[in-house]
């Protein structure tokens, strides 16, 4: 395996204070240097991405008085993919008096992450969760309320307390619009300048500090260099490496990957979350997958036929010929087992040849019992919008025939390595939201992505970035600087190269093939042999890409093929690192299931002796270097998860 990587020095988070966990965040804020209000307007910050993390960070940094430059590839900051989050946002408010607390949310998150996250970060997240709800309500986010006028909550994703705040099935939309409106308010105030339809294509590092980015104006094609005293990446996750995922079509790893190539460590890239309840693939034309909220598993029963290759319509399969496999294998949790377990169980029954629908890649999610028990109206009131969406996409009526669902890539827990201040291994480069690796360990709990994005953007980064900026402003830069000119030239050369190949295969055809390799070998179940095979196939396909890709048009104006080509080129390099990370981690944990590491009854087997660390990878251009950050648990003691 040393063919694939080498071992470097360990890394450590030097910013989190020791001592009682309850006061670490308070003590860190006190220890951080402050920036004089009069100096803030002399300091500038670039924020890439306008989702929950980037939008809230840009707005808050603007309010604090910094000069902020915000970038997004979409036509408006309001489009960022946080908008599609459905379920809700967790907060330890304990409004229900049901035993919740900051400590319980902290505990659940560390355990849910299968003991592969940092206690300090997670505890801070749980503390801040409370402030987030206050902040969002003050902005006018229309959360669901009860008749008394107070906020409603629900239990979500198997949590035993009711701590999830929600706005019907559109919580992400409402939270993002809150952040977007705060951002637009700062744009109007002149503290933030917005650059929509711009894509970051390179990081500029001068004298060892992140000092700017190279961007392409997607409408005119113009390449410019943009400078600041610090750079914040809030560019989201990399689930689209699988081609088919629940991410938006434009989601990509380019901003993170360019920073990684310039020295930012990439942590735990193999930790991906595969969501069990998505609408199955319907054909070769499929361009993305659609999530159906996890809340459906509260009332739907999952089953497949007992017999292999049973092609009868579901109504013709009698009760005793159905296998309600989650209820059978996990009697205690039944249909509500965590995401990774539900996903793998669906894969197993399909691998046995008992899957349903086109290609046998689906299982039924049946509401007949719920409709019988509660009545159709009650089911419609709860899930009406989801049933409508399902019917629009599949043409089938879930009230009368069971839904078909199948797992799909949904979220990436891995990301750029950051310390407690959310600063990467490059001074002046901060990473927030899904783009960093910090809080979810090997598996994210439902309704925690929105919490982390907003915690980072509204509350953490604005407090920690000052400690770095207090040393600024840094010397003025221009295009004459050798490091700036080199970064710009890299971008121009790469675009020219992509346009000049003029081969005979489209960008999408490569992306689909890469996605198939990743899904097959680096998806729900990973093996040593499979990952080695994947690495060699990825390398071959990458070489072919640079020989045969056809990118029409030129770089002078809007060229959506060129945009995709650059993103897919970076996905190839990321895919290889994901497989190397998955190969080196010879244990199963959270979303990472190594077939070689399972208990006698087929459950994930962690190996804390050997793998209780964050794998932070350094880019070398050849075999990457592994830096380990040891994880210690003082408050939550690692145990094997059990849902039987």
């Amino acid at each position, binding site marked *: 395996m040393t063919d694939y990587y080498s071992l470097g020095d360990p890394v450590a988070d030097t910013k989190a204070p020791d001592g009682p966990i309850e006061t670490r965040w308070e003590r860190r804020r006190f220890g951080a240097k402050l920036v004089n209000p009069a100096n803030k307007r002399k300091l500038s910050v670039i924020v890439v991405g306008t989702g929950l993390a980037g939008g809230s960070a840009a707005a*808050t940094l603007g309010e604090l008085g910094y000069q902020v430059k915000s970038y997004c590839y*979409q*036509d*408006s900051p*309001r*489009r*960022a*993919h946080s*908008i*599609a989050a459905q379920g809700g946002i967790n907060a330890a*408010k304990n409004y229900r008096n049901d035993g919740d607390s900051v400590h319980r949310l902290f505990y659940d998150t560390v355990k849910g992450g299968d003991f592969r996250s940092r206690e300090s970060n997670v505890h801070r997240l749980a503390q801040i969760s409370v*402030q987030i709800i*206050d*902040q*969002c*309500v*003050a*902005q*006018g986010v*229309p959360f*669901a*309320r009860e008749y*008394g*006028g*107070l906020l409603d909550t629900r239990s979500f994703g198997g949590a035993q307390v009711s701590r999830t705040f929600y706005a*019907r099935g*559109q919580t992400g*939309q*409402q939270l993002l619009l809150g952040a977007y*409106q*705060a951002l*637009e*308010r700062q*744009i*109007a105030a002149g503290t933030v300048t*917005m650059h*929509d339809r711009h894509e970051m294509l390179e990081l500029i590092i001068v004298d060892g500090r992140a000092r700017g980015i190279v961007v392409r104006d997607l409408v005119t094609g113009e390449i410019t260099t943009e400078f600041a005293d610090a750079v914040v990446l809030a560019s989201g996750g990399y689930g689209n490496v699988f081609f088919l995922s*629940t991410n*938006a*079509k434009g989601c990509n790893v380019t901003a993170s990957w360019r920073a990684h190539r310039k020295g930012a460590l990439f942590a735990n890239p193999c930790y991906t979350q595969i969501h069990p309840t998505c609408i199955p693939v319907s*054909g070769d*034309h*499929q361009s*993305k997958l*659609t*999530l159906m909220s996890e809340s459906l598993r509260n009332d739907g029963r999952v089953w497949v036929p007992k017999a292999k290759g049973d092609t009868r319509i579901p109504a013709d399969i009698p009760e005793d010929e159905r296998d309600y496999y989650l209820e059978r294998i996990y009697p205690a949790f039944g249909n509500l087992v965590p995401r990774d377990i539900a996903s793998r169980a669906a894969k197993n029954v399909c691998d046995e040849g008992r899957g349903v629908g086109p290609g046998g890649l689906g299982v039924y999610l049946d509401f007949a019992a719920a409709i019988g028990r509660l009545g159709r109206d009650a089911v419609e009131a709860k899930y009406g919008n989801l049933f409508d*969406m399902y019917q*629009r*996409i*599949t*043409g089938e009526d879930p009230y009368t025939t069971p839904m078909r669902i199948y797992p799909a890539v949904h979220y990436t827990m891995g990301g750029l390595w950051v310390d407690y201040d959310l600063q990467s291994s490059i001074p002046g480069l901060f990473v927030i939201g899904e783009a960093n690796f910090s809080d979810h360990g090997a598996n994210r709990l439902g309704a925690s992505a929105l919490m982390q994005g907003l915690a980072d953007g*509204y509350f953490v980064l*604005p407090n920690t970035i000052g400690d770095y900026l207090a040393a600024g402003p840094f010397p003025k830069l221009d295009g004459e600087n050798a490091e700036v000119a080199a970064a710009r030239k890299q971008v121009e050369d790469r675009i020219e190269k992509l346009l000049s190949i003029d081969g005979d295969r*489209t960008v*999408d055809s490569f992306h689909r093939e890469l996605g198939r390799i990743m899904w097959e070998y680096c998806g729900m179940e990973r093996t040593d042999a499979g990952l080695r095979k994947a690495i060699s196939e990825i390398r071959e396909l990458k070489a072919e890409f640079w020989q045969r890709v*056809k990118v*029409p048009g030129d770089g002078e*104006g*809007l060229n959506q*093929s060129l945009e995709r080509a650059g993103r897919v080129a970076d996905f190839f390099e990321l895919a290889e690192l994901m497989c190397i990370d998955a190969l080196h981690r010879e244990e199963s944990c959270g979303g990472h299931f190594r077939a070689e590491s399972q208990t006698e009854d087929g459950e994930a087997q962690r190996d804390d002796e050997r793998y209780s660390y964050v794998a932070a990878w350094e880019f070398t251009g050849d075999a990457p270097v592994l830096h380990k950050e040891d994880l210690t648990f003082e408050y939550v003691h690692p145990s094997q998860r059990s849902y039987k």
Partner: protein
Amino acid sequence: MSLKLRIWRQADARDKGSMVTYQLQNVSPDMSFLEMLDVLNERLTLDGEDPVAFDHDCREGICGMCSLVINGVPHGPEKATTTCQLHMRHFSDGETIDIEPWRAAAFPVVKDLVVDRRAFDKIIQAGGFISAPTGSAPDAHAAPVPKADADAAFEAATCIGCGACVAACPNGSGMLFTAAKITHLGLLPQGQPERDTRVIDMLHAHDEAGFGGCTNTGECTSVCPKGIPLETISRLNKDYRKALHAAS
């Protein structure tokens, strides 16, 4: 299915543009409308032609980025459905489909089917927010909101900012979009302090951005993928009169 597509092609903002006809075979009824265009674009790319530019992102009906006028109707024939959620099973074999960009003075064409909708952001900048700087919030339960108000505010807040309302309006008015935000924020107690200035400032920004006036034709609400009702505009007008009165 096989289809005849007539698509608006326009090289850039300065180009005059025209409809161009393409034949497309082997379209599956399970494809979404945008997947059908993906298939066309794959073919055009391999044939050495410029693929058709169109906006899209989440492809699940919530980001508001997709924006096509299909057979004369923004987002096409299905009610309460964005283009990305429209599937080819709603069309028939041999059909001719016209595909055009949003057409409105405030939304200039960038290329082919892509338009510039930043005029919407300008309206929000003028007052489509509640001024609540980070960290300044009281406890979330400090101000209860009657459930009926909260639900109505949520309904208005579901607007995805796609601009179909503008594309459908004979006046190119952005009033439904503006009214949805006025309604969302005006129904909540937190939105009261800025209620008057908000409606005045947002309406001025609306007019300055090049949107036309509202003459109550109702085309906007009939194509709105989120079903934002026309009553929001009545509410906006009422708020505007009250605000002007208070200001004088």
